[in-house]
């Protein structure tokens, strides 16, 4: 076993070998999840706590299902309604939960780096379910698995990530992962939605969507994150849709067998044409959701095994 990471905080610290190992295991869980009896005992007796400091439906459900299918005891904490409101700091919350001896903590937080901070204070495996504008590693991994299954490989592909790159942790994790696996990554979007320093990312940047999509194998759309915007990034949603919304006409610039992806939830008619999103010949959006559960099962199993293999840490 080569997977040695003690936490899954981001793609940045994973090696290509670890990524491949995780995806290989996730492939097996896809098969399990398609059976009638979807149950394993890999995490039996272990406790998984989902702490979501930011609203989430699909990610939280996916992690919950992943834990339950592996036999873990899963608890969901709605952090917005809890002691955080009473002024407890993140670290105190973490220490409190840590005292209950969880084995896996799944954390989403609106601030970049908050999950890293929390991971320093607990002695169990922490999975980052999205922190601010930093990373969303399981999303990138499920995207990678979806691409690998659709394209038969995860290298030397040309992949366009389109839309609101600046506010997207999904984009950051995907840029890192796809780069590590030696793909050509293109970023497509208006200059106002590109993060600073983008020229140093080792990617190609396109402001014209048709040019950006020319001959790509994968079109990855991002949600326009209206809730993260503090004003004035785009003139209007209709102009955005006109220039950067994915429709079949713009998609025709890509390879004929190019697949369309979206991390969800979608803004139909803002970044993607609704009909196209539902086109089972092009869109793999539903597969992405399916892969999500499998990837999270694999991630949790590997983290638990890596912890068991590592010398026991002493809590400071």
């Amino acid at each position, binding site marked *: 076993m080569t997977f040695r990471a003690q936490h899954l905080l981001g793609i*940045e610290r994973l090696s290509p070998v670890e990524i491949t190992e995780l995806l290989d295991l996730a492939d097996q869980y896809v098969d399990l999840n398609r059976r009638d009896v979807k149950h394993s005992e890999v995490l039996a007796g272990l406790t998984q706590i989902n702490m979501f400091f930011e609203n989430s439906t699909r990610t939280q459900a996916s992690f919950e299902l992943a834990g339950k299918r592996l036999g873990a005891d899963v608890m969901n904490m709605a952090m917005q309604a809890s002691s955080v409101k009473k002024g407890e*700091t*993140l*670290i105190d919350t973490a220490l409190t939960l840590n005292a209950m001896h969880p084995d896996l903590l799944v954390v989403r*937080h609106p*601030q*970049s*780096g*908050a999950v*890293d*901070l929390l991971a320093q204070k607990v002695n169990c495996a922490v999975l980052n379910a999205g*922190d*601010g*504008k*930093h*990373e969303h590693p399981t999303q990138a991994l499920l995207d990678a698995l979806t691409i690998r299954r659709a394209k038969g490989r995860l290298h030397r592909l040309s992949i366009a990530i389109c839309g609101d790159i*600046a506010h997207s*942790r999904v984009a*950051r994790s995907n840029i890192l992962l796809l780069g590590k696996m030696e793909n050509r990554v293109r970023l497509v979007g208006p200059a106002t939605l590109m*993060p*600073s*320093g*983008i020229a*140093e*990312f080792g990617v190609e940047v396109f402001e014209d969507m048709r040019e950006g999509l020319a001959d790509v194998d994968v079109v990855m759309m991002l949600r326009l994150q209206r809730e993260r915007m*503090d004003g004035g990034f785009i003139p209007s949603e209709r102009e955005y849709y006109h220039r950067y919304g994915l429709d079949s006409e713009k998609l025709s610039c890509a390879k004929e067998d190019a697949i369309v992806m979206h991390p969800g939830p979608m803004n139909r008619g803002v970044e993607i044409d609704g009909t196209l999103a539902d086109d089972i010949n092009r869109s793999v959006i539903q597969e992405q959701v399916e892969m999500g559960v499998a990837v999270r099962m694999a991630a949790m199993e590997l983290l638990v095994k890596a912890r068991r293999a590592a010398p026991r840490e002493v809590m400071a």
Partner: protein
Amino acid sequence: MSLYLHNARLIDPEAGTDEIGALRIEGDKIHREAVPQGSDEQIDCGGKCLAPGIVDLGVKVCEPGERHKESFRTAGLAAARGGVTTIVTRPDTIPCVDTPETLEFALRRGSEVAPVRIAQMSTLTKAREGREMVEMGFLKDAGAVAFTDGDNVVTDTKVLSRAMTYARSLEALVMGHPQEPVMSAGAAVTSGKFASLRGLPAVSPMAERIGLERDLALVEMTGVAYHADQITTAAALPALARAKQAGLNVTAGVSIHHLTLNSLDVGEYRTFFKVKPPLRDEDDRVAIVEAVAAGLIDVICSMHTPQDEESKRLPFEEAASGAVGLETLLPAAMRLYHAGALDLPQLWRAMALNPATRLGLPGGRLSDGAPSDLVLFDPDAPFVLDRWSLASKSKNTPFDGQRLQGRVLRTFVAGQEVYAHNA
């Protein structure tokens, strides 16, 4: 009491010299004649450096209001241990120093409990709200050495131009924080690849130039004496150079952190490296060091900003900005010396002579008759900094665990020894 200090490397920022010599301290004055008098206590400095005490422009003491973070006593102790003989305090306390009464309180507290000299700045506008100017005349009479709203940039240019005009008529110094406040609102780091990878809210370095250009236009308009607290980006330097060439009464400073650290030091969200303005890229750091060497930037300060543990043990965005620096200013500055970027007279011009001159204080000199505020230090002595060993109440130093060189051996204020290192 009189002392004869001999066999010392005298660092004279006025003369620009660094040579072995001797001097006498009689009472609160320096005497440069190199002969001991009969009653002198003689100190062999062992070839170590003897320099004017540091004048640290822009120290946050947290008193009144937040004495759990720092007090005049602990700040004074930290200063003495760091070779800082004059603390020029910032007025951004709670409540802020915006009346002659609060100013007198701060000065009295300082003189009672701090072993070093205290010079106090006042806010420029009442409650730092940027609406009405403070009673500048009264405050100046009470001892305010400069007027500044700190990092609360006065956005209303009409208010600022009036305050500057009024300050000019009083020959008072206005200190600005060159930063376009809307652009930099909420920013935790400098924009660029690192900021984007970490997903942190970032500000373009251009916000500093925009802020500076605006302030300089107002200086040109009003004729006020103006000091930019921190210039940290290469993009702002041409504007500063033009203003100086045009003969405007302008000086600029920079914190030691911006001269010795860069944006990548934040690493994995280390909040002790969160300062205001944020740490810059290496290119900027190098350009600013060169600007200090060229004399374009006049002042190096610690920007001492104590923050308690709780305000730093937070996600990076939420964590408070600022770092303590009184005790680490000198050893950190030695990094620049050992790197060959600045020699010791250049450093002491920026850390002692220039700030004293700018504020109209007599210190910062080794000349005959100058105040006997001195620091004796070993520029080479190596050590690893343990933040818990600092005298400040707050331990938020970015140099924790780092190897530093440069140890203060003795500090004198007005001829009295206020610190001696026990080897």
